[in-house]
């Protein structure tokens, strides 16, 4: 299973803690961060179970 999340880099106030929070929340359902990329001002995070 794959889930994709997007962080708008121009909107987020604290990127570091936001990424940590997303990863911690996704880990509750056994999703691990598999890949990331940045497109324009968007950080895309791909999680896999």
């Amino acid at each position, binding site marked *: 299973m794959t889930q994709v999340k*997007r962080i708008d880099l121009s909107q987020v106030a604290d990127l570091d803690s936001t990424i940590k*929070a*997303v990863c*911690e*929340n996704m880990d509750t359902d*056994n*999703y691990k961060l598999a890949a990331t990329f940045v497109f324009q*001002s*968007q950080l895309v995070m791909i999680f896999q179970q």
Partner: protein
Amino acid sequence: MDKQKIFTTVLRSAGFVSAAMAVTGCADQGYSVLASTATMIGVEVSQNPATQMPQGKLGYNRAELAFVPTNRNGGKQSVGSVGAGAADSANVLMELRYGGIFDMGASSGIYQRLAVGTEAVKQPGASVMFAKDADGKINQETAKALAAVKAIPEVKEDLEKKKMPLSKKYNDYKNNKDASSIAKYDNAAKAVDPGYLTFGKFATDDQATPDKIKAVCQILKSQGENVNCD
């Protein structure tokens, strides 16, 4: 006075005038954020007097300086600051593109894009502006990719951070194989929304509202969990 000295004198004069303007024109201003960039390009073709061989040198010089005023007017104890002080500094989004000194094609030259201010940086127009290529156009693939990326659910920073302390405890219980505590969290999520079969389904749900997060937290707190639901 030879040409080199005249040029140097003019350059120094311009520097003094700029410095004077900066001091007098911004005399009432408090603290500023100083932003600067510099690049260099130059070409020199000559003959080496020792070997008589022709030689060439390339370089490019470019400087940029900006004072971004803030509302801060002193140190931490200052009473002269306005609003949120230094936190009110303007947001700046800048792109500088240079094709390179050997680029003679369509992509040669330099361009710069700049968005200043909180609203300018956040608004969709800034995204569109920065999505354009060197000719100022958005190609079809870029537009499609931008639309596809925008369709991905956006993380809500505040909600993710509210769920995180609960998730951290849940993950600790999972790592310690504490079955009764895991069941407690799963049941709390299920009690708030029967669609959440496990706590994990709740924690990974983009649509989990602040009310649901608070409700799950309060159930866990009522069962003895040391969590802050404010």
